[in-house]
């Protein structure tokens, strides 16, 4: 399999961010939470590479530490929706019948609502915080995985090797786990990559709206919100976390795109 340049770039970006997150304390030039009255709203320069915010905190160090939160949210946030969605989708697609009807009606009920609006209202009801964001994601985000897994399972259950396994008397659970799941995994992984991007972006959006990670945490959405009133006079407060978000999002999106392209060529 030939690696697409998109994929390589994406992996490089994501790996870079993972490294940044891992060694954040080494890379940071300042304590990301240290308030400095003498250095309020300093523009980017030798002392503060990305400038300082409205209470004198170093934006560069905060962006670096923000990578930890972003990856934490992005990678953890997709696990529950993926597991739930995959299970529901595979079971529904493989067995069909009333299970399929019930599962797909559930999907149909969830899909018409804009994803973010639904997440937002669930978080509003449960209260702000990252845990509640994860709960909301689990409640809403599984739908995409379920549809995808079901479509794969529908095709796979008529595949010759599945039929063969069935005639040989293997249990449904075994077939699902050993044959259907591995063969549908590739498209799910592609979707997973775009979903990570989405989860990071929405997490930041919640932080921006004051419903996600709460200040003074060095979270990119929170930082963008803090810089909002300063956008015309101290652009760097919001710009750099925004840029970081773009770079991490592009990284995951490129992996997803590259993977999809490579798999398509293979087929």
């Amino acid at each position: 399999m030939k690696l697409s340049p998109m994929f390589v770039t994406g992996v490089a970006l994501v790996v870079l961010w993972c490294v940044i997150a891992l060694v954040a304390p080494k890379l940071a030039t300042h304590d990301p939470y240290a308030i400095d009255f003498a250095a309020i709203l300093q523009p980017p320069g030798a002392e503060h590479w990305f400038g300082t915010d409205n209470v004198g905190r170093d934006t560069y160090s905060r962006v670096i530490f923000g990578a930890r939160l972003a990856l934490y949210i992005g990678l953890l946030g997709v696990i529950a929706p993926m597991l739930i969605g995959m299970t529901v989708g595979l079971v529904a697609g493989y067995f069909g019948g009333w299970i399929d009807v019930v599962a797909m009606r559930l999907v149909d009920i969830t899909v018409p609502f804009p994803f973010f609006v639904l997440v937002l209202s669930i978080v509003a009801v449960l209260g702000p915080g990252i845990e509640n964001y994860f709960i909301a994601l689990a409640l809403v985000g599984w739908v995409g995985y379920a549809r995808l897994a079901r479509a794969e399972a529908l095709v796979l259950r008529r595949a010759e090797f599945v039929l063969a396994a069935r005639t040989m008397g293997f249990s449904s659970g075994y077939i699902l786990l050993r044959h259907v799941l591995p063969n549908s995994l590739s498209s799910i992984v592609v979707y997973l990559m775009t979903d990570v991007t989405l989860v990071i972006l929405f997490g930041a959006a919640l932080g921006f709206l004051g419903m996600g990670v709460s200040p003074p945490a060095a979270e990119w959405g929170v930082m963008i919100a803090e810089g909002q009133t300063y956008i015309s006079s101290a652009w760097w407060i919001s710009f750099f976390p925004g840029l970081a978000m773009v770079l991490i999002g592009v990284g995951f999106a490129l992996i997803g795109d590259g993977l999809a392209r490579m798999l398509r060529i293979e087929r």
Partner: protein
Amino acid sequence: MYNRRIITAAAVLALSGTILMAQETIRIASPYKVTVLDPIVSAGGGNIEAYGLLYSRLMRTDKNGNLVPGLAERYEISEDGLTYTFHLRDAKFSDGTPITADDAAFSLNRAAKDENSAYPAGFAPIAEIAVLDERTLQWTLKHPSAPILANLDIFNAGIVSKDDVEERGEDAFVTNPVSSGPYMVKEWKPNDRLSLTANPNFWREGLPRVENAELIEVSDANARATMLMAGEIEVDRTVPWPQIEEINNTDGVSVKLEPSTVLYLVLPNHTRPPFDNLTVRQAATMALDRAAITKAVTLGHAEVANSTFSNALKFYDPSISMPAYDPAAARKLLEDDDLVGTEITMMITPATEQIATLLKAQWDAVGFKTTVERVDAGLWWSKMANADYDVTSSWYFNETDDPDLAIRWALCGTCGSHSYYTRYNNEEVNELTEEALREGDEEKRAGLYRRIQEITVSEIAQIPLYYTPYANGYSDRVKGLSLTPALQWTLEEAELTDG
């Protein structure tokens, strides 16, 4: 040359038919909502600013800040200071009916005694209001009150039409309210805009000079600034400190810093630990570099507060001052009383995030352990009212430059709002508040208010932070418009120039 000018003019005319109409309008964009037009039922900022445009009052504050006769042409005060007689001028409501003493009595009684009145404190001393004849009104007071005349120009003392309100009830303030002020309602779209047009029967002849006005609700500060710089509005109510420079650097618009009685302060809860302890309050005060906080938050546009009084109030005493910034001494105070590690829960709203971050840093630096509790504005008020908080930060303003109402709001423990819900309750302060209200002699009053400042500063009833001006953005085309400390627009005297 001549032809070209005509062509240009024609092109401009053709392109901008609607814009020419709009030039007769002063558009004010504000984040503060106009939610109700009945002058007595709300003390919300957006409403207060609209009331003055729709309802005239018996007294008026002129542009130099002097109290002058309004709808009352003249008045007499009896020697004991208990009976006030007002002679109304010949004036009409916007619907053409005369403004009578009946209307004035009705309006003042509503503000003073109606159960829906949001702010009756200013009229509490009034015992009875009598109508002597169609144009003469007389009231008697329970006790003398030095600021009562000035209180007649508070936002809720606007004169409304008795007949109309009695006939239509609440609806009288929803569709086409009858106006006694410079403007009347053309169209009101709640949550969008209040469109006003000149009241043809306004008693001040020749005013207002500008035919139309619009109060537009724009909550986002960046959007307002952009609209102002693009000429889509003439006034930007409230420019955040960081935007002032950019607006001032733009041609045709500028920010005016207008005097206010606004005081930003830290409110400690006196009913429960840790802030019921004077040592804690002292340490918490000395831990704060209030000058640095002021500069950080307002970018140098505000003055550091020294007293529990706003510096724009009468009888403010500049010689009194809060304990100075001294983190070492603050630490020592805590150590001596074994209070190092005292936990503080600071309740904040999104609007005070920055101040809270700074307070927490400085408190923690001397040995407090501060945690931040985030609430929305609605929850904030209910927690305040129930004294369910340790400490928070907020601000308030006073309707007049007389300190009486400010003290009743923020420092008097028996005046309804429990010292701005801090439950600070000092009997001497409470008594002084009443004594100062009744004192006719200015010098003696000054002494009483000085004493109140001394006590509340030494006991650290609250920790004042800074005095801010109002920062409003204006198009250079607008002349003569300002926002008074009482949050009233001088719109009736404003002009719009070309260019």
